[in-house]
């Protein structure tokens, strides 16, 4: 799947059996909206050039 062709419906269809979940039509519409929102936010992060660092939480040490 190309990122440019992100399809929330395709992601939902692929994920539901894996997750063992079912959705009512209103829930599916809501989940789709949340996925589309998340994908929009991901687009802003995707191209950002980062040095490979990992630090999961902002724990400041004295």
């Amino acid at each position: 799947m190309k990122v440019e062709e992100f399809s929330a419906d395709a992601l939902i269809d692929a994920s539901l059996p894996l997750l063992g979940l079912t959705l009512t039509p209103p829930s599916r519409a809501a989940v789709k909206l949340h996925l589309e929102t998340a994908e929009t936010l991901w687009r802003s992060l995707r191209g950002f050039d980062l040095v490979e660092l990992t630090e999961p939480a902002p724990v400041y040490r004295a």
Partner: protein
Amino acid sequence: MSEVHLQSAQQIQTAVVSGQAKARDIVAATLARISALNPKLGAFTDVTAERALAKADAIDAARARGETLGPLAGAPFAVKNLFDVKGLPTRAGSKINRERAPASADAILVQRMEAAGAILVGALNMGEYAYDFTGENAHDGASRNPHDLAHMSGGSSGGSGSAVAGGLTPLALGSDTNGSIRVPSSLCGIFGLKPTYGRLSRTGSFPFVASFDHLGPFARSVADLAAAYDAMQGADPHDPAQAPRPFEPTSSGLEESAANLRIASLGGYFTRGAELAALEAVERVADALGARRRTVELPEAARARAAAYLITMVEGASLHADQLRQRSGDYDPDVRDRLIAGEMLPGAWVVKAQKFRSWFRARALDLFREVDVLIAPATPCRAPKIGQRTFMLGGEELLVRPNLGIFTQPISFIGLPVVAAPVWTSGERLPIGVQIITAPWREDLALRVARALERDGVVSAPIGRAAS
């Protein structure tokens, strides 16, 4: 002294220590006020009357024996219902958790507040599992704004905001993952402190997103906020995120001048999408602090908000993964559907967001070499109406629930300490808050600046009388 229960925690403590008032009378008056106003405000989900009266009697007896009373002696407080309270199920705003066994012990912060003499009077309404900025709850109803009952309290610590702003208690505790102390502080017109990540113990509280979760106090005065915060500091080996910081009292330095601090407003992202009221509030505060013309940028704040949003979705979903399969029908649908979406997000997105967090934190620390205090809006607008699903931000129609925290999320993303302080405009019923942001571990500076603004009348937290 009939109205002493409506005064600040500091004034209550003075009255109790001096013998002008008995703790029992204060608690009795507080319980009566909760009984009268809570049906309209929806702030409390549990009232611990028997426990509170017993604690009050113990304080009065200690005074009669000539013992030294604590810095919060006799001051009623309540906690968001994700804090463990011995004998109560820890609801975390949910239908599911209230079916669990009652907590066998109080949360650490409840213990510390009571050790300082404060008196727990109950547990407070909140958005389900803290995934909320509105203060609405599908199971317990909305906690309402004491300045206008038709409007939101903000969330997810909505009951905390409503209780303190409504004069039910002078103090409350809440949690802040993405803004859940600062948003209700802004909408309800009270002071709130989100300390540095890792400062206050979270032991005995129900988590939401562990790498963002903070606990902190609400109050109607900065002195009360500082006193509660000081009372709750201290090491706890059971919270793995807590840093080994020494006790660093803030109350004693509150009256020090803020004039020598380097203060700037946050520009860029923190001005986009905000309503005029939010921008004017920042301008008034900056003006009062002599920082009107100094604006700095926190680089890539929009990306920080995006990263916080994605991490929240996935960490939150992870916590609920098993329960979603077993009890999905018992969730608030608005919360459930966000959690399910979080389960579906690619792992690579979140790893990138985590890496970005380190990058962004380094940029913020760079900024604090140039300034001591940053000012930004707490919310983009005043309190929306209860039930309102969307609002206009920057010309775009967006959902209220996930977007009231657009200005708080980038800050909690990297765990910086923040005091939210309320600003009022003549002729407006509803307040709006500003964030006073400092470098890690400098809660003292944020509180000192808030106190300077309070002293000068720029910020204040009057009791809302809409329910009276």
